[in-house]
């Protein structure tokens, strides 16, 4: 009986240490990984943008491989230094490196819904402040072809994890034909809540990209 108790105690202590270690990895390890990935993606993006042939080569999402960087996301309300490289794809692997474009949705500036997903509490917490956006907040997306400025048109909304209506061409109206150039930002609440936070906006301005920026 004493041996059994001792072994059980040691197993429980080991499990506790493993779980604490995993928590530390989720908080610090994923943030370090994301920071290093963003640095490499930023270099890759700037070198791609320096090549004028890339503009003609990138015409649609089909031209991008999963994990390939293609745009820069800035939300002025989150501070002047807040910017992330957006990669193609929104699976767990792509979101570990930063915000990801949801395949099947429009590209920046196109008619339809340009949807971006990102983590809220791991991988550098890119969308931690997403619920603080309000109607009128600006969202800037810079690509090789220009800077697309979107304005939030709907306050953050909480939807069920499995609810994909926000990804429709007209967010929340699946089947409706696209009439505007929209943007949708999505992130998750902690897993036990079973909800996502969704922010939608509309394109209000397109500016030329600053060369060498």
């Amino acid at each position, binding site marked *: 009986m004493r041996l059994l108790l001792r072994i059980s105690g040691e197993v429980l202590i080991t499990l506790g240490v*493993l779980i604490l270690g995993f928590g530390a990895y*989720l908080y610090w390890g994923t943030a370090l990984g994301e920071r290093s990935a963003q640095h490499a993606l930023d270099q890759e993006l700037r070198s791609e943008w320096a090549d004028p042939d890339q503009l003609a080569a990138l015409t649609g999402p089909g031209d991008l491989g999963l994990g390939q960087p293609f745009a820069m996301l800035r939300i002025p309300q989150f501070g002047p230094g807040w910017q992330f490289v957006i990669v193609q794809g929104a699976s767990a692997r792509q*979101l570990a490196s930063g915000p990801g474009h949801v395949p099947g949705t429009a590209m920046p500036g196109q008619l339809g819904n340009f949807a971006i997903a990102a983590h809220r509490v791991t991988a550098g917490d890119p969308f931690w402040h997403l619920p603080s956006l309000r109607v009128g907040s600006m969202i800037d997306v810079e690509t090789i072809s220009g800077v697309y400025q979107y304005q939030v048109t709907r306050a953050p909304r909480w939807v069920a994890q499995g609810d994909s209506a926000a990804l429709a061409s007209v967010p929340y109206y699946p089947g409706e034909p696209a009439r505007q150039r929209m943007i949708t930002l999505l992130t998750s609440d902690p897993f036990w809540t079973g909800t996502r936070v969704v922010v939608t906006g509309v394109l209000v301005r397109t500016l030329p990209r600053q060369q060498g920026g």
Partner: protein
Amino acid sequence: MYGWLWHRLPGGTGARLAALAVLVLAVGLLLWYVVYPWASLHLPADPAWLG
């Protein structure tokens, strides 16, 4: 379990402590660089991903 491991380590107390430190470091590195990254992609700790 830990008592069994301690008695299996070779040498005196100093050598055992050194071996234990190496063992703990190896397990820690394996967890940090292999097991936890894999688990973070497969466990829904922060399920923002789609697909």
